[in-house]
């Protein structure tokens, strides 16, 4: 009991501090509100300390497994929350009157991601997923007077709850078939028992229902329609948060749930998952070609990246897991960076249209250079970290002999270069559009600038000297079944 509680102490502490910050918002006087930002940072730092000092291993309450693999993603989730807090620090609409609510919702969502990344039980999967998503519903609609924000949130909510319901239906059938909700026991049931045809059909149906829920969270292709609308409507820091935290926990739990089946290629699951990955990449990339809103473009590109991360899962080997970790880290840095630049530009020009970034190099050269770096990394061009991430994922697929998957992924990478370089072309080779003049009151955005600089320097540093990062990732790809 005590040992189990020690294992989930970071999560307990973080949810406690989120509750505290929620109360702080309600009961504390106006002039103390500016401390919310620093307090939330402090809470994240203590949680990080509890996580890594010393790193714990074991199983808590038979439901949550702590291993190096989950630790990596928990640290990633904490850092992404820190980044989001930094880039939304100067935003009056978010960190104004309701700063405590905003911050506590982000922290709750991070707790959900942390639970999700160590779930080894279907009940924990469901609870972790809800704890991640319900705060995101509210955050997406946080700008209550902005109709676009509410509309994106309600679309996200409707698709989200529907897919949760379907996922639960799958879970109930898995429970009925196997009498357990542990991933391991379900796999053992599947392996040992002589299954009749009826059982197999029910099992496959249950897995399909379960995939509907997971696919929604990963925005895999049949469940991706909400993504661009929600990304466009939500406040931009939240959009950046969406693209990172949503993926991290769910991909881990999908790995834990399916890697055994994929390793043995049970029931043709490998080709089924490969098909999902191909569809996601291709449709995401093709739809991104004709987007004129920067946030929508990045939303479609995030769908395509989700498909690419999925390749690591399809490969089903240890190298695939390493690829997933590296890709998640790289995507975290480059997508947050790109969104930070979009936030900066939209604060200057009050527009997120692609024309707002036109001629940026003549107005603000350092900013356009950073955006160039992020876009190069997103399209997977060395020496940035995005290249190593793609390289590892493809390598894993080649090791698993999935050559057609790699070929299609490479074609997709080429399509992606086109729309990323469309932005580059607009930034560097076109004149600024003076119809939207730079707003006269230029405030300093310390948090935003610091976050962008940090992201770009980490991308370059890890891209040029990947050895230490790679050895760390190799050490952390261990999972306790």
């Amino acid at each position: 009991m005590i040992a189990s509680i020690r294992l989930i102490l970071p999560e307990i502490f973080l949810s406690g501090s989120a509750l505290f910050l929620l109360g702080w918002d309600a009961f504390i006087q106006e002039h103390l509100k500016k401390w919310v930002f620093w307090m939330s940072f402090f809470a994240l730092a203590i949680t990080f300390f509890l996580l890594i000092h010393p790193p714990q291993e074991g199983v808590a309450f038979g439901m949550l497994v702590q291993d190096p693999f989950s630790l990596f993603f928990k640290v990633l989730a904490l850092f992404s929350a820190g980044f989001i807090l930094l880039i939304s620090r100067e935003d009056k609409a978010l960190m104004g009157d309701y700063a405590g609510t905003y911050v506590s919702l982000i922290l709750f969502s991070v707790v959900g991601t942390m639970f999700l990344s160590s779930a080894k039980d279907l009940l924990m999967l469901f609870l972790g997923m809800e704890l991640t998503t319900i705060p995101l519903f509210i955050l997406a609609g946080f700008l209550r007077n902005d109709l676009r924000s509410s509309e994106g949130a309600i679309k996200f909510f409707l698709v989200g709850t529907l897919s949760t319901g379907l996922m639960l239906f799958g879970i109930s059938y898995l429970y009925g078939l196997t009498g357990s909700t542990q991933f391991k026991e379900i796999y053992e049931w599947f392996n040992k028992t002589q299954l009749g045809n009826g059982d197999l059909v029910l099992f496959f149906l249950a897995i399909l229902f379960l995939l509907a829920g997971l696919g929604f969270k990963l925005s895999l292709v049949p469940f991706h329609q909400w993504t661009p609308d929600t990304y466009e409507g939500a406040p931009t820091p939240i959009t950046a948060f969406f693209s990172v935290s949503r993926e991290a926990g769910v991909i881990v739990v999908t790995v834990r749930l399916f890697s055994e089946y994929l390793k043995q290629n049970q029931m043709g699951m490998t080709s089924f998952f490969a098909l999902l990955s191909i569809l996601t990449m291709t449709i995401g990339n093709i739809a991104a070609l004709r987007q004129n809103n920067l946030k929508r473009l990045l939303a479609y590109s995030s769908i395509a990246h989700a498909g690419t991360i999925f390749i690591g899962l399809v490969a089903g080997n240890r190298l695939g897991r390493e690829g997933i970790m590296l890709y998640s880290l790289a995507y975290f840095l480059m997508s947050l960076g790109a969104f930070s630049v979009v936030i900066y530009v939209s604060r200057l020009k009050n527009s997120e249209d692609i024309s707002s970034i036109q001629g940026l190099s003549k107005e603000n050269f350092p900013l356009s250079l950073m955006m160039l770096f992020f876009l190069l990394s997103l399209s997977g061009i060395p020496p940035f970290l995005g290249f190593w991430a793609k390289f590892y994922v493809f390598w894993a697929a080649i090791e698993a002999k999935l050559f057609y998957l790699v070929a299609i992924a490479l074609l997709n990478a080429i399509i992606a270069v086109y729309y990323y370089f469309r932005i580059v072309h607009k930034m560097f080779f076109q004149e600024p559009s003076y119809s939207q003049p730079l707003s006269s009151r230029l405030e300093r955005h310390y948090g935003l600038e610091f976050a962008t600089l940090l992201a770009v320097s980490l991308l370059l540093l890890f891209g040029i000297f990947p050895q230490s990062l790679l050895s760390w990732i190799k050490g952390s790809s261990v999972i306790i079944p």
Partner: protein
Amino acid sequence: MTLHPYLIVSAFLLIIGIYGVLTRRNIIGILMSIELIFNSVNINLVAFNHFLYGGNLYGQGITIFVIAVAAAEAVVGLSLVLAIYRNIKSVYVENMNILKG
């Protein structure tokens, strides 16, 4: 009583729920259909627990979690509907078309 009638009822609830989500134009109606899906899950879990795994209360325990989470989701959903209603004075999905999805 055997297990099968329960499973048939819950499958019907699921189908009615999905049909409702796909055809309703009123957001409140969609929310109610989603609740139907959650309740079909609850019937399933309790029936499986009672008829197949009577030794423990695991399935019924999950049901409690499902009910609690469904309530939390309904709260968030209704508040989002209120936020939209304040802006456009309508709860019909065809009026939500600013974002071209």
